[in-house]
């Protein structure tokens, strides 16, 4: 067993035990249901803003977009307006495709070294597919949870619930997003564990959020389908949090507090981790700049003064030889 995922798994199990025991044995419902969630939300918001501000404080001295298609050049050559965007509109579409559809990841292939040698680049879209499934199902789950914080529940959320539960299996009906989230997170986890190359460069910090999210999904599914949490009580608690009149209703099982604790840890952990790719993807200078650097000058705010070797100095070094070779000079001998 690899220590990196072992430690991460142990950490998540420990978090589970802390919350479970804290509620069941010590009766610390107010800590896990009110204080920690508040702290986590504050940490998340402040941490996120501070981190993004910190990035934004560093200037972009050079425009270095990665050009992934034909440049805008001669009028009869068709430019690639999205992969090598000359205009702001192109950049917006490029960024939208990147953020909403993971376009660059879609290019992925796997390299195989065959007899010969003959190198082949094999179709590999699983990472793209499961990443997309993971992020979108997570988004749907988050949006679906907003019903706990709004009264009355807006119609659009009710529609989303209908779509998410369209399979109408079992009672309560199976929500597709939760199942997909768990499956995709499992895929990402097993990919990290089983593919030796990926395991090689994975850090504990890569496993921890995966185990945590799996923990969140499992505890959520447990509540919905198995332990059948007291949904009215839960809503009472969540509405208390958003209206700043927090109180703890009776009769909510410990598993709920575990679920909330996991989410709180994820929120608090977020700004200090790689999960900040959520903010960073918008700011990446290789993607969000126009590829028009030959037509429009990009300004470097700290453009340094440098020592140069001038033509005059050059001519001083070589004047005699230059005259000998018949080259024009500024100053005769």
């Amino acid at each position: 067993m690899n220590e990196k995922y072992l430690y991460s798994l142990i950490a998540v199990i420990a978090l589970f035990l802390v919350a479970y025991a804290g509620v069941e044995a010590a009766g610390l419902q107010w800590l896990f249901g009110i204080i920690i969630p508040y702290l986590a939300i504050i940490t998340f918001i402040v941490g996120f803003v501070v981190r993004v501000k910190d990035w934004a404080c560093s200037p972009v001295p050079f425009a270095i977009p990665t050009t992934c298609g034909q440049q805008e050049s001669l009028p009869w050559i068709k430019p690639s307006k999205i992969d090598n965007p000359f205009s702001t509109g192109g950049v917006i579409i490029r960024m939208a495709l990147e953020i909403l559809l993971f376009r660059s990841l879609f290019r992925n292939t796997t390299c195989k070294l065959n007899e010969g040698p003959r190198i082949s680049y094999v179709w590999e879209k699983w990472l793209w597919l499961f990443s997309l499934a993971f992020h979108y199902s997570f988004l749907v789950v988050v949006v679906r949870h907003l019903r706990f914080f709004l009264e009355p529940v807006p119609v659009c959320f009710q529609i989303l619930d209908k779509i998410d539960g369209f399979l109408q299996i079992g009672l309560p009906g199976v929500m597709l997003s939760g199942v997909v989230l768990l499956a995709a997170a499992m895929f990402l986890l097993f990919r990290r564990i089983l593919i030796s190359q990926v395991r090689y460069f994975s850090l504990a910090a890569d496993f921890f959020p995966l185990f945590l999210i799996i923990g969140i999904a499992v505890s959520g599914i447990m509540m919905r389908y198995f332990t059948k949490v007291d949904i009215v009580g839960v809503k009472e608690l969540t509405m208390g949090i958003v209206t700043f009149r927090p109180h703890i209703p009776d009769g909510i099982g410990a598993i709920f507090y575990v679920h909330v604790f996991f989410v709180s840890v994820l929120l608090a952990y977020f700004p200090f981790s790689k999960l900040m790719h959520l903010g960073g993807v918008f700011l990446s200078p290789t993607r969000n700049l126009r590829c028009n650097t030959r037509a429009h000058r990009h300004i470097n705010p700290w453009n340094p003064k440098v020592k140069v070797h001038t033509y005059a100095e050059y001519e001083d070094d070589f004047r005699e030889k230059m005259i000998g070779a018949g080259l024009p000079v500024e100053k005769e001998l």
Partner: protein
Amino acid sequence: MADLKPEELIARTDFTPPRTGWMDTPTVIREGMFCYAAKPKSVATLDLPYPREWNPLDDDWKLPENWKEIIIEGMKDRLERFRTFKIFMDICVRCGACADKCHFFIGTGDPKNMPVVRAELLRSVYRNEFTKAGKILGKLAGARELTLDVLKEWWYYFFQCSECRRCSVFCPYGIDTAEITMMGRELLNLLGLNIDWIATPVANCYMTGNHMGIQPQAFVDMLDFFADEIEDTTGVRVHPTYNKKGADILFTTPSGDVFGDPGTYTAMGYMILFHYLKEKYGLDVTWSTFNSEGGNFGLFTSNEVMKRLNIKMYAEAKRLGVKWILGGECGHMWRAITQYMDTMNGPADFLEEPVNPITGTKFENAKSTKMVHIVEFTADLIKHNKLELDPSRNDNLKVTFHDSCNPARGMGMLDEPRYVIKKVCKHFYEMPRNCIREQTFCCGSGSGLNASEDMELRLSGGLPRANAVKYVQEKHGVNMLACICAIDRAVLPPLMGYWVPEVDVTGIHELVTNALIIPGEKEKTVNLRGEDILNKDEVGPDEFYTRPDFSGR
């Protein structure tokens, strides 16, 4: 290296990572995989810090007492100056999409050549010094102390990256390993830890105007010698002008093409083209001995050094009073021009927005830098039927095109070269889609790694490119690899010789001028290389390729 056969080299490549984690696997600096240390004289010429004799194989690198402090301060300074650096340190999720996109990883199997791990070499120290998680959790958060071994590992692997940016095409966040390597090299340069193959060309370029250190009179001699060669094969005498004030256009190209075959044929190609344009249309193009280098090895040293070398282009254009600048076929030169030059040394408001005086075409895409790529220029001329061409003179060639990394991923010049090739050659075949255009593979020797002492690294790193050439050689009988980069022209011949014998290397303007009908030329029987060109009346191209002595088989 030469004694290691291709199959032996490939047999050593194993994609299975070692049992120990990368932080616990010590880096062994191995002969054949690194370039010699920068000579103190070259470092001193640029007034860069800590010039000294040192040897990467020695235990003692003769570092200053406070080297660690210098590096940490250098990181802090760069984190504050480059958003790229900060973001690329923070947001990688290690998804691994980049891992097998690197030619050095594919060719060597060394996991530290996976772009993600190359970046982690630096990130681990960043986390340790600059992040709370790293300070508290240490190794668990992927942090590690900066030690002498870590510094040596940086040096070894940041000079095993050719800054080709292929991985950044596949990265969902656009993390650009070239940028990380550039930061790594800037930091190493703070301690005088450059390689000589970069430091000496930089010093040469600074003092004599070009990487090769060719002095003005010698530069003229070399071009005169080319004029003799051209006269031998075409019967036409060309008269290049130098440092000419009031010329229409200043031409700048890498000195490598003046220096060594087969780049020299491309240089001759330029000379013939300019002669043709002068004779037919009165266009006055001048060369400069002061600005006799298009390439910029400063790009591989630090942004300041890049600026110090690049400044000559505009300075010389201003001194000579030309209208605009024309740039030759070169890879990293065009990265520097496209993404750095205007920002660093612009605005070039003393030049005119470039217009091709022969066709009237406005080069709108270059209206601020005022610098046009010669392939754009030639494509425009051909499109407007301004060049009289006989493509059958290239009938002995079956051509494929290698997109050079920087024009592809730092500029996006993909279709212009293809258009020109197809207009001057009848037989053109593309390599597979995953190996061309924005996904092109590096020659394995870019970013100043084209020395001879690191030949094993170069041949390993060049394998993916060579392998794709081999594919079209076997499938279509390709015998000529065209490119638009002077480093390519210098390094692809030995690479082809090793992996795909019988395939030769050419610049596009050699092909153009082979096909170009020059006013007053004698009947051509040989090309610029002195090789027989096919007599089209005697044998058709199809028959030609079925001949048993056809070299592409």
